[in-house]
């Protein structure tokens, strides 16, 4: 119990519990994981909210993310500066959205951000190409990728602007029941 007190105050833990999908214990475990990434950088004491950020390269090396083709995008989508540096809060945020309890809408918003490689708030052909190449490890020929892109956008685009807005994306997601269970990382 004494150990618990030194990392976070009760007030902080309550706030985390109210704002994320984690319990106290899981928050502490997450802190452990975060600390483990860079023991000399991350302080054990978070009661006065130290300003400490870890670079993308460190976070991407976590076993949960290491093999994920979208690892860089995941981390970037959750970082405030867009460069992939994560503070502990953003780190918690990331796993909260990717947790089992997060609702579909929240997951959809961040999935959209992850797939939106050029950060233009639309999934355009370029984004889809990159997604496909990452998914298949560039096993498809460029022609096939082009064809898939065209067809996929044609299918999912509802308002006819040849790219997928968030509304299109969400509409598609609601029809893919497995999305909720697959867009989930156990921590």
């Amino acid at each position, binding site marked *: 119990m004494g150990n618990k007190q030194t990392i976070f105050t009760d007030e902080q833990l309550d706030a985390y519990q109210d704002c994320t999908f984690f319990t106290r214990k899981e928050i502490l475990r997450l802190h452990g994981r975060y600390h483990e990434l860079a023991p000399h950088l991350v302080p054990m004491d978070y009661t006065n909210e130290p300003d400490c950020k870890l670079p993308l390269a460190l976070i991407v090396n976590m076993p949960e993310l290491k093999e994920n083709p979208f690892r860089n995008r995941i981390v970037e989508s959750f970082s405030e500066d867009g460069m992939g540096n994560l503070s502990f809060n953003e780190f918690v945020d990331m796993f909260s959205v990717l947790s089992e309890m997060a609702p579909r809408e929240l997951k959809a918003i961040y999935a959209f951000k992850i797939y939106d490689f050029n950060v233009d708030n639309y999934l355009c052909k370029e984004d889809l190409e990159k997604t496909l190449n990452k998914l298949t490890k560039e096993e*498809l020929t460029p022609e096939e990728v082009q064809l898939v892109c065209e067809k996929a956008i044609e299918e999912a685009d509802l308002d006819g602007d040849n790219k997928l807005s968030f509304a299109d994306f969400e509409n598609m997601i609601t*029809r893919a029941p*497995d999305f909720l269970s697959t867009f989930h990382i156990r921590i």
Partner: protein
Amino acid sequence: MARNVNFDLNYPLMEAGLESPVDEEGVHDSFNQLIAEQSQNGGISDAYELQQLQRELDEGRDDVAYLSSPGHEYRGRIKGRQDVEWDEDERQTDPLIAERWSSATLRILSSMPSRTIGRSRGAIISQYYNRTMQLRRRRQSRPSIKDFSRSARPSIRGYGIEADEADGEGTEVSKRERLVNNLQNLSVTDRVRMLRAMPLSVAEKSELRRLALQKEKQTLSGSKLPCCSRLKYYIIIAVRQSWYSWLSFLSSLQLWQVPLKRVSGRFGTGVLSYFIFLKTLLYFNLFLFLVTGAFLVLPQAVHPPVLPAGRRPFSGLELLTGAGYFSDTVMYYGYYSNDTLNKSCKDDGAVQNDPVSNSTGHDCVSKSLSYKMSLAYFFTIGMAFFFTCIILVYSMSKSFGRSFRIDKSHSILAMKAFCSWDFKVIKKTSVKLMSENICTQLKELLAEVNHKRVKNTVGQKLWRLMVHGLAWAICLASTAACATGIYFFSDHMHQNLQQSSRSVNQNPLLNEASLLALPVLVSLINLLLPGLFNLAAWMEDYESPSVRTYVAISRNLLLKVSVLGVLCYHWLGRVASDPSSIGLTCWESFVGQELYRFLLMDFIFTLLDTLFGEFLWGLFSEKVLRRRRKPAFDIARNVLELIYGQTLAWLGVLFTPLLPAVQILKLLLLFYIKMSSVMMNCQAPRKPYRVSQMTTVFITLLCFPSFLGASVCVTYTMWSIKPSASCGPFRGLKTMFEAGKQWVQEMEKHDPKLSVVARAHSYLVEHPLFLFVGAGIFLLVIYFHSQVVDGQRKIISLLQEQIENEGEDKKFLITKLQSIHEQKRTPARRLTSQDSAC
């Protein structure tokens, strides 16, 4: 000016807008206004002002902060910059905007609502402001939104807030304040739910929460509150604290966190779903065990009945047969007494001396602190089934809602691209396999899209039909053969028992062992026939994997249902109708023992299957056949086996109150064995597996044939089979169900005022009319629901059409906007050229 109009409508508002044409008009009006403004300006052709505007716009491209609303912070600026950069690129790539748009148009485009969803903080905050507002309205059960004046409707009001967003620096702050206000007024659970669902960073959310809490405290301490609401506040806080500690306690109970993560990291969601299903079953059994343990086993164990002498010694075979040494224990129905246990008296007796305890005992009976075993038995089993039913139906409906969406999916390729990656998988080889799978699936889909479907000739169709017919015939015939085989074998065993009960001098151990023959036969059939079905499916060569899975499931299900049907007939028809013919004094205990044996044999055969089917076969195919691939884990078959085992457990609860405990042990062991077997012998599945759909199917199977069948059997036993006369809590009664009736009658005798209860009981339980009415209402509700769903389906297709129309409108408006800009720009250019000429 164009830049002062901000189309920051957020998403739910759009939805709300679509519901009523008036609101929609509101949205359109704003566009009209904008265009009118623009054309007005163009019409007057105020050359100087336009020139200035043009300059401003050009500067705007350099000064990025100008583009985003002034209230935005650093992040907003970054976003603005990216937007602008992207807009530059967009001109070349996007076919719609192939021509050069003026920057004013682009600015409007970039502030369109669909672009700001989930991005701009202001948009999110106002979106959630509206939501909290709606929630507050709903919770306070005020008149519905329709009764509000139009201006007070959330959508339009929200729109007003949005519209003045751009011209005030403090608007975001005030919006935030309003959001905090709303949050403060919500109940604790609603607030937490809102906060959690907000797509903001944790830091911001906790800031919002802090503000809301602060305000709450201020209002509490500032105003003179009546004592009771202060008390309420403290109670709320206390309840919340205890809720948190309860939650963390629950999360610490979360079983198998690490192994589940390992499995999901290696095999993905498909195989994981099997283990999660196993975990669900474990919880069901835990619930059953706790209920029967607390209300039946514990009271009876504390007050053991007087047993007939001559208990058989423990020989070891009991563990398999469940008979012998175990037969006179709390495990079985027969051990339970029909007495009234007087709890407090015995406790008192333990404290006081023996002679005194007798007198206190008499006192206690009159104090009605008694525990009537037969009633307890009846109601415990009934309630346990009732609650299990509710939980099952609830989880089934939830699962249905999650997996079967109303409309048919047609954007398969896009879904494959965006939703097929399993983020859980972390093992390198599995990741590689998954991307290969996705690749082949995409290729297949492409091929399908390209040349739709090759039409089969009549001959091919006939051939296929014949093959399917043959396969089904084989499966049905083998199932029927097995069922009749079990029927005759059980008959034979029954006659054997009859003979052996007549002849006295026989080895009891041998008799006991012979009881195992039937369970072994049934388990053997359950093990071997699925192999035959697989062979048939291989012969049929189904194209789509989901059809293949469904066919396999239905065949296996048919087999299991028919086997269980025959067995139920054997137990409830043959054994229960004439127990004395096979020398039984307590047929319930015998049936309980049979179920125990079946459960155990099922477990042993699953182990054998795991050993031979998975481990040795894997070794064989690797070493001898030189196959590189390990076999894939057959999720469907394994889940069906779990369901079969669970059906046995539910069937047996009435006769063996401790059967859930046995089942718990079995599931625990099974989890570890299957886990290690999967890890050692199996490979990530090659075929796509629709997890949520299959989970729904399995939950439905667990509910419909499994649980329903078991409860029908149990109810039939309670209602119309005569319980044994010399054992069990219901001895001396015509049916088990009479226990309740007797109790009510007794109560009525004791206290005539309670006759209403008795009458209600006789009407509710004994008359079939009530049952029919209940079932009728249930069917009506289902019918209405299906009608509602039908209506929703129509609305959805209408809405989709509407969205397409909106898209067309959007394109039209943008081109219109652009043409007006062009008009505006031409005179401006002319003017500048004149200037330079001068």
